[in-house]
């Protein structure tokens, strides 16, 4: 089976091949405005990657310890004490295979969906910009192929992230997906109305993520400094060794620990391992006495990186704004895959977190707090995608909290099921939004115009309503997704969320309370959303004329709905059905199969399900029984400042604006105007330098150049001229003078001869 493993580099290079094809031939693949060539190419590439991920899964079934497939050596720098050896090696083990399957599987479905969706989205833009026919064709070609270039680029980058076998390769993928996120969020950067907002959202994502990346990099530096290597296996082996042995002894370790926890100091584990050159032992190492402190610091910095990428407190503020991107982007990047990178990273580094229990608690509390805060904010949002964005942040909080509590199986389980149902919800919302826009256009064609007082916003839930009748399939799958997010058994979301709650109840009561309350609000806001969007009567003409989406859009929705419904079978907490736990156990030493009877607690499950049902009932009473009418304000607004507080996102952006952004702008303005412009430019440059130079040049040019140099040259000329004036007078023109001169000359010669030669 080892031969099959060597196919794994293709999983990254096939999407990149799709990038190249779409970059160079994308426009040529679209002869007409209805062609979908680049989208088909991108989807085929994504599908092929999924096939390779399946092959990896099958290969691992016979070889579950995992394999490192070396590809090339990127950095190899021997310094005096340590060697920086960073290979590009693909780590195929059970954890990365789960990630690969989720990323490529959901990714392929979203690529297919995006073909139909972007076709419509670009037509919307063409209509809004009033382009001519040729302009429209060229525009369509460029944007359509550009979109799928970026999507494939993202897919390849995410796969680099999850298949890297060392922290630096993971960071390469980390940065690349951040770039793709920026490119895709700001895809409509030149939208006539929202162009600046879109590009600003992209910049916000990139900049906030940068803060997280700083944490990540600091952690990487510390890891290399402490352990002398960046490869996962080596770092974790040395870390476990350093707990009980002096550090100098541990730096020779290259092999991973076996599952039972004993260090194998030399020799290799089975399978192909990329063993780098051994580092020379270091006699003295910094931080020697405080190893536990070092590991705690490392893990906290890793957490900072995770809060950036996975949108936790305090760096979650970019994700709601990222909804400015097209809906497939929101589904793929900001729900299913990129934002889970932080959870994956923490799970991968579980050895370090096990050695620093304090960090684990911090992670858990941050995750739980984020889950709670975001769930409450979602209650007060009116934009259909914003609700889902805060829901994503909240669910990521669940995953991060689970990882912090050491419940890695629960975290990965929820990561997978969340990918299914959140992608479903986002894609479903995209279908709703397109339905609304088509309804708006149908109105315009029939000569009507919306009689609503506000401008038309296809994403505002207050302008929807009664879409169950107009878009039944979308409504059905959306409700399936909503129910599973709310955690209603036997759908997938119930099993994964319940496992997290169970572990939280045992490990950290505060986290358990926060997460349970968050689960309550989750069910409430999803119920609110479903009642507002699909039930009641349409509140605007556009909603009344909305129509169902084509099969290219609805088929992925149906597939995802099926996965959301049955996905819980991955890891049922009964008897021998802990498939995921057993699977992950090979890669994640902290992932253990629970003892019989310990995997499920009727009390916890009962509380969470009961709260979810109560929340749904409450949402029905508030939003369902008396459906919202056009122009009516949200019934929760009776709570006054509380609802405003939730609607305004706990004023979190305003807080950052006041603490960070405004002072930074003032500082930048100070530097630009006072220091750079007034002082440096006006004073130093203009006054001192320019005037000194001008003065010096004046001195050199006037008295020196004109006076002395010109004077000397002119003086010589004058002298010659004067001399010649004088000498000219010899030429009198009188012949007799010349004759006299001749005679005198003869006389002189005669005198000379006489004096000289006569004795």
């Amino acid at each position, binding site marked *: 089976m080892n031969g099959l493993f060597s196919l794994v580099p293709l999983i990254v290079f096939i999407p990149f091949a799709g990038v190249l094809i779409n970059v160079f031939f994308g426009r040529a693949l679209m002869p007409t405005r209805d062609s979908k060539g680049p989208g088909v190419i991108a989807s085929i590439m994504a599908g092929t990657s999924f096939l390779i991920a399946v092959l990896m899964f099958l290969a691992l079934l016979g070889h579950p310890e995992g394999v490192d497939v070396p590809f090339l050596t990127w950095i190899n720098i021997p310094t005096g004490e340590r060697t920086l050896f960073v290979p590009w090696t693909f780590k195929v083990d059970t954890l990365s295979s789960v990630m690969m399957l989720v990323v490529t599987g959901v990714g392929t479905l979203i690529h297919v969906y995006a073909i139909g969706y972007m076709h419509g989205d670009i037509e919307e833009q063409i209509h809004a910009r009033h382009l001519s026919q040729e302009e429209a064709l060229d525009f369509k070609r460029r944007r359509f192929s550009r979109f799928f270039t970026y999507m494939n680029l993202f897919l390849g980058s995410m796969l680099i992230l999850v298949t890297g076998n060392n922290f630096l390769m993971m960071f390469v993928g980390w940065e690349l997906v951040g770039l793709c996120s920026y490119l895709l969020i700001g895809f409509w950067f030149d939208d006539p109305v929202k162009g600046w907002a879109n590009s600003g959202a992209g910049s916000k994502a990139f900049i906030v993520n940068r803060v997280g990346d700083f944490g990540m990099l600091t952690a990487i530096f510390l890891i290399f400094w402490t352990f002398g290597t960046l490869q996962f296996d080596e770092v974790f082996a040395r870390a476990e060794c350093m707990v009980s042995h002096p550090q100098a002894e541990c730096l020779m370790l290259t092999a991973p620990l076996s599952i039972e926890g004993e260090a194998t100091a030399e020799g290799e584990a089975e399978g192909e391992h990329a063993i780098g050159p051994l580092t020379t032992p270091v006699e003295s190492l910094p931080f020697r006495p405080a190893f536990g402190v070092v590991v705690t610091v490392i893990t906290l910095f890793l957490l900072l990186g995770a809060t950036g990428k996975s949108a936790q407190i305090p760096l979650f503020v970019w994700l709601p704004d990222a909804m400015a991107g097209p809906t497939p982007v929101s589904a793929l990047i900001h729900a299913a895959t990129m934002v889970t990178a932080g959870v994956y990273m923490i799970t991968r580094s579980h050895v370090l977190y096990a050695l620093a229990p304090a960090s684990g608690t911090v992670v858990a509390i941050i995750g739980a707090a984020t889950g709670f805060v975001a769930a409450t904010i979602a209650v007060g949002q009116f934009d259909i995608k914003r609700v889902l964005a805060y829901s994503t942040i909240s669910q990521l909080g669940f995953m991060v909290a689970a990882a912090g509590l050491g419940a890695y199986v629960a975290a990965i389980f929820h990561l997978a099921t969340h990918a299914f149902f959140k992608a479903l919800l986002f894609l479903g919302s995209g279908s709703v939004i397109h339905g609304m826009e088509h309804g708006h256009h149908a109105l315009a064609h029939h000569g009507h115009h919306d009689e609503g007082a506000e401008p038309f916003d296809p994403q505002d839930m207050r302008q929807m309503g009664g879409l169950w009748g107009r878009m039944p399939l979308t409504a059905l799958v959306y409700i399936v997704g909503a129910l599973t997010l709310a955690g209603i058994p036997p759908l997938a979301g119930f099993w994964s969320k319940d496992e997290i709650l169970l572990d939280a109840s045992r490990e950290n009561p505060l986290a358990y309370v926060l997460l349970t309350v968050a689960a309550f609000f989750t069910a409430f806001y999803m119920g609110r959303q479903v009642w507002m969007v699909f039930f009641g009567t349409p509140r605007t003409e556009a909603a009344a004329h909305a129509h169902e989406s084509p099969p290219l859009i609805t088929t992925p929705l149906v597939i995802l709905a099926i996965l959301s419904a049955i996905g819980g079978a991955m890891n049922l907490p009964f008897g021998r059905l802990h498939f995921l736990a057993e699977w992950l156990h090979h890669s994640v030493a902290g992932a253990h199969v629970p003892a019989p009877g310990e995997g499920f607690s009727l009390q916890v499950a009962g509380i969470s399900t009961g709260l979810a049902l109560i929340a749904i009932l409450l949402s029905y009473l508030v939003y369902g029984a008396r459906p919202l009418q056009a122009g009516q304000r949200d019934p929760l607004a009776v709570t006054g400042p509380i609802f405003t507080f939730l609607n305004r996102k706990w004023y979190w952006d305003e807080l950052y604006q006041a603490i960070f952004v405004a002072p930074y702008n003032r500082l930048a303005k100070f530097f630009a105007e006072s220091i750079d412009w007034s002082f440096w430019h006006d004073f130093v440059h203009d006054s001192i330098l320019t005037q000194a130079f001008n003065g010096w040049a004046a001195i050199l040019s006037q008295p020196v150049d004109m006076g002395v140099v010109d004077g000397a040259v002119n003086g010589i000329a004058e002298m010659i001229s004067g001399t010649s004036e004088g*000498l000219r007078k*010899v030429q*009198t*023109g*009188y012949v*007799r003078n010349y004759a*006299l001169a001749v005679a005198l000359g003869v006389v002189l010669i005669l005198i000379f001869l006489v004096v000289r030669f006569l004795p």
Partner: protein
Amino acid sequence: MPTETNFLVPTSYYIILSAILFALGVLGVLARRNAILIFMSIELMLNAANLAFVAFARSLINLDGQVFVFFVMTVAAAEVAVGLALIVAIFRSKKSIDIDELHSMEG
């Protein structure tokens, strides 16, 4: 025939005579304003030189001196021809042969 040996006139007499004639010629060239008189003075100078040539030919019993006189006379004649032609041309334009009036090529 007288019986005493012929005594030659000493050569130095001829040379002195030639020098005096030459000096007179020079004086004439320098002091005259009439162009023709200047030419006459030049002829005088040339003839003085001729005399000196002949005297030396006689005293050195060498005919080279006398041959040279022929050359000098020929040159003198040619020179006078050209010079007189020039004087006629000048007279035609300036109506005078006073050389003091010919100073237009002055500095």
